């Protein structure tokens, strides 16, 4: 807080400047727009100065890195001790094909793995299911049984590298496979580090991969969190995600607010079992987008950390600092990339990556320049990884913790974002909480409205996209960059493999295990141990999913647009 006398003097100087210098300049040279707004449509002033943060209480608002309320970062020295994990997601074709891409990325200096699964795996269909037709191995890697996971991580030291798996309604099955694989290889479970996305709430609101209704889906998340905190102390059993909310069209504030609202729902769900909040909250992790509006994004990351710290301390009475400390993975914005002039995407991604780092991310995926056209090619992924390496090694932005802290603009935006997040959280509580708001389609409608408002602004030319609605060029008939091509044999290869696995297993034992699974589903016991038994015997993902449809039912989508 500034000395009131000094602040008064600054205010006077500011007014004088506005009347003289600024007025005279404006008369000669009017500003080029009536107003300047962020990507989310928030108006930004010409200048920020001490009067904008007059009541700013440093200790209360910022504190020091690694300390409550963690605005400046979750760790005391941030990237000086440990650079963010460079984690490029990969997944396509068969497990063997993705395994090769993983080894390529590790050889290029990547420090963590991240798996993208194909749509059938994400939605709980085996590769031989009619609903999987045409989608096997297309948008990610196909995994039907433990045998595929064995191939996927062949020759990769799972005790030494952290592995993130982007999967949701079927997350518990993949987690079970991961545990079974580690046990098979003799790796102690305490050594496993990584993350499974497992955030079903944002599936209902934004990413739209679901199987069961809301309540049993939450129970599955709960069970995997509880299993994980007991057996996998270094593993993040849920990655509470704003990325998809933003990609579906939300504003920055909605992204942060709806993500934290999902976090609140998971904490409540696990606490209902009687588990102490400090026993599991430190293992909750988050995932945000880093979009194009630089300062808005930096402010969002800082505000999200502060709000989460307050929620954990004040709402849930957490005692351990680790429970209040928000850690997040970050990915640059896929929807900001254009099919036109694809090389421009390299530049967009680099700026977005810098915002993520200045906002204090713990790991980062930078998008390939070709993502508006196809699955990223090896060359595009290498360049995206090099973008991060240049950021870390050459720009110097990682030398100092929270280097934008104290900026009049960034602190003002951080405060604004925080206030707007709280307003949303109050509204959500007004519905009776996150699940109640979800069941009333609140999130879905808010996101659809924002997406439409953005599209209208873009079409009116109020939002400029270089190469699309400004600085267009005649596009060449064929893309100017080489693209990844899909192996047409994948589906057949995978189906044959699945048939072989099914032939070689003990089908009597599978039937018995599936009956046990159904039995556990009807009680309130944890689903994880029996699921691990199932996958160990090479029960397929689809068999497990189908077995539970009877007990749990199916989710029905409300049509909102």
């Amino acid at each position: 807080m500034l000395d009131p006398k000094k602040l008064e003097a600054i205010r006077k100087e500011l007014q004088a400047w506005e009347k003289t210098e600024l007025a005279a300049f404006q008369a000669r040279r009017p500003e080029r727009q009536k107003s300047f707004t962020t990507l989310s449509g928030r108006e930004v002033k010409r200048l920020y100065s001490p009067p904008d943060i007059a009541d700013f209480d440093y200790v209360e608002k910022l504190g020091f890195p690694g300390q409550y309320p963690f605005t400046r970062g979750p760790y005391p020295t941030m990237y000086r001790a440990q650079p963010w994990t460079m984690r490029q997601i990969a997944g396509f074709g068969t497990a063997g094909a993705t395994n090769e891409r993983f080894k390529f990325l590790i050889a290029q200096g990547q420090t963590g793995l991240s798996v993208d699964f194909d749509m059938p795996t994400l939605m709980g269909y085996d590769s031989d299911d009619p609903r999987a037709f045409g989608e096997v191995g297309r948008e990610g890697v196909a995994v039907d049984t433990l045998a595929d996971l064995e191939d996927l991580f062949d020759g990769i030291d799972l005790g030494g590298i952290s592995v993130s798996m982007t999967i949701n309604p079927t997350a518990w099955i993949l987690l079970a496979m991961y545990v079974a694989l580690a046990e098979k290889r003799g790796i102690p479970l305490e050594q496993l580090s990584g993350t499974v996305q497992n955030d079903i709430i944002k599936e209902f609101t934004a990413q739209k991969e679901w199987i069961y209704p809301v309540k049993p889906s939450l129970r599955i998340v709960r069970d995997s969190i509880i299993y994980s905190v007991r057996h996998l102390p270094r593993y993040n059993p849920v990655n509470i995600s704003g990325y998809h909310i933003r990609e579906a069209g939300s504003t920055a504030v909605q992204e942060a607010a709806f993500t934290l609202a999902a976090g609140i729902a998971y904490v409540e769900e696990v606490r209902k079992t009687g588990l102490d909040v400090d026993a599991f909250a430190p293992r909750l992790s988050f995932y945000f987008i880093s979009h194009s509006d630089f300062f808005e994004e930096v402010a969002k990351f800082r505000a999200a950390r502060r709000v989460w710290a307050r929620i954990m301390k004040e709402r849930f009475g957490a005692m351990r600092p680790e429970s209040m400390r928000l850690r997040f993975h970050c990915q640059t914005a896929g929807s900001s990339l254009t099919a036109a002039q694809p090389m421009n995407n390299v530049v967009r991604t680099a700026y977005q990556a810098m915002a993520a780092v200045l906002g204090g991310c713990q790991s980062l995926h930078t998008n390939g320049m070709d993502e508006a056209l196809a699955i990223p090619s090896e060359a595009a992924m290498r360049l995206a990884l090099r973008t991060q390496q240049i950021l870390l090694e050459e720009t110097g932005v990682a030398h100092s913790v929270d280097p934008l802290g104290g900026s009049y603009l960034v602190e003002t935006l951080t405060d604004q974002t925080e206030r707007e997040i709280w307003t949303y959280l109050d509204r959500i509580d007004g519905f009776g909480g996150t699940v109640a708001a979800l069941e009333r389609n609140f999130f879905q409608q808010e996101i659809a409205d924002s997406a439409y408002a953005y599209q209208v602004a873009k079409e009116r030319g109020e939002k400029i996209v270089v190469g699309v609605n400004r600085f267009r060029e005649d596009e060449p008939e064929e893309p100017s960059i080489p693209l990844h091509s899909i192996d047409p044999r994948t589906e057949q290869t995978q189906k044959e493999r699945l048939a072989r696995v099914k032939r070689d297993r003990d089908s009597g034992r599978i039937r018995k295990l599936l009956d046990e699974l159904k039995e556990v589903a009807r009680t309130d016991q944890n689903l994880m141990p029996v699921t691990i038994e199932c996958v160990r015997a090479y029960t397929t993902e689809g068999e497990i999913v189908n077995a539970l449809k009877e007990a749990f039912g199916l989710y029905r989508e409300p049509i909102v647009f």
Partner: protein
Amino acid sequence: MTERKIRILVAKPGLDGHDRGAKVVARALRDAGFEVIYTGLHQTPEQIVATAVQEDVDVIGLSVLSGTHMLVFPRILALLRQQGAEHITLIGGGTMLPKEMRELKAIGVAALWGVDSSTQEIVAWIRDRFSSTAR
């Protein structure tokens, strides 16, 4: 005599959940005065064609961002033929290459738009198409 509004089915085939484009287009078409039905997600080609026939639509608009467009569009065209519903105009959009768009148009997809397109282009195209055909 009131003229019947043009009826459009906006549909999302397959397992992919990227419905931002489908929803934005559906809303823009509705705001432009068309009658819009949105299927929701995870539809099979059979379900989409059945809905189109049942709802007596003039246009089906498919949104495909999963890379399966070269399978889905031909399949829908074949099903429309089987059902004697070739009069329904099939259009679509998503992540696809110029070469693929040419191939799809050659087999009977009336119009396609890439991911950077404006909703107003789509509105204008539909208006134009149906102003020239006597209904």
